[in-house]
């Protein structure tokens, strides 16, 4: 597609439920990022993939968060046993190459509300 596509756009989960958020990056983009944006804050880095390799997962807040990109294109962010503090917008982004200065394009985000 023309841009980064994320699904679902909106998700309401009961506390303790597992959720999976999907990201389709721009075709041909090597780098894929997941960010978390809390209300009133800027996006915060969660994890980064170069093709299928997860090179940096330093931003994942706990071991309940897991991301994968098995074939180097589509990625899934999974949150197990969701808690209220997980409520946020989860943004996926991609860029053509892995180098400083490469424009990073964001999707519209998946809005997660944990009740």
């Amino acid at each position, binding site marked *: 597609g023309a841009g*980064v596509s994320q699904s679902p756009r909106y998700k309401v989960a009961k506390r303790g439920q597992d959720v999976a958020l999907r990201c389709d990056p721009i075709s041909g983009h090597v*780098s894929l*990022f997941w*960010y978390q944006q809390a209300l*009133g*804050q*800027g*996006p*915060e*880095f969660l994890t*980064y993939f170069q093709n299928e390799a997860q090179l*940096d997962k330093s*931003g994942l807040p706990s071991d309940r968060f897991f991301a994968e990109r098995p074939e180097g294109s589509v990625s899934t962010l999974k949150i197990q046993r969701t808690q209220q503090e997980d409520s946020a917008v989860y*943004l996926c*982004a991609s860029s053509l190459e*892995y*180098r*400083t*200065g490469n*424009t*990073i*394009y*964001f*999707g*519209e*985000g998946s809005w997660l509300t944990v009740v």
Partner: protein
Amino acid sequence: DQQVKQNSPSLSVQEGRISILNCDYTNSMFDYFLWYKKYPAEGPTFLISISSIKDKNEDGRFTVFLNKSAKHLSLHIVPSQPGDSAVYFCAAEGGTSYGKLTFGQGTILTVHP
């Protein structure tokens, strides 16, 4: 610790005038800076960027200035238009954060007709 700060939560400007959005950073390893614009219920959209080897980059109505010694950058929008009303995020990358962005908290810009 907040490595990238946007100290003004909001800014209100009259249409046709200049909008100046400011951003400060603390990490001297940052060497590339970007501005993103975000409308409600949408993802951030890339606006303009600047490398640390430059002190100015211009693209149409948008100009970004970088003052490395002060660890400060600003985005100038001239002339401002009502369609520019959005949240503007400053972001930085470089050093050990190579390939990932550190964002500021954002500034809400409102341009009045």
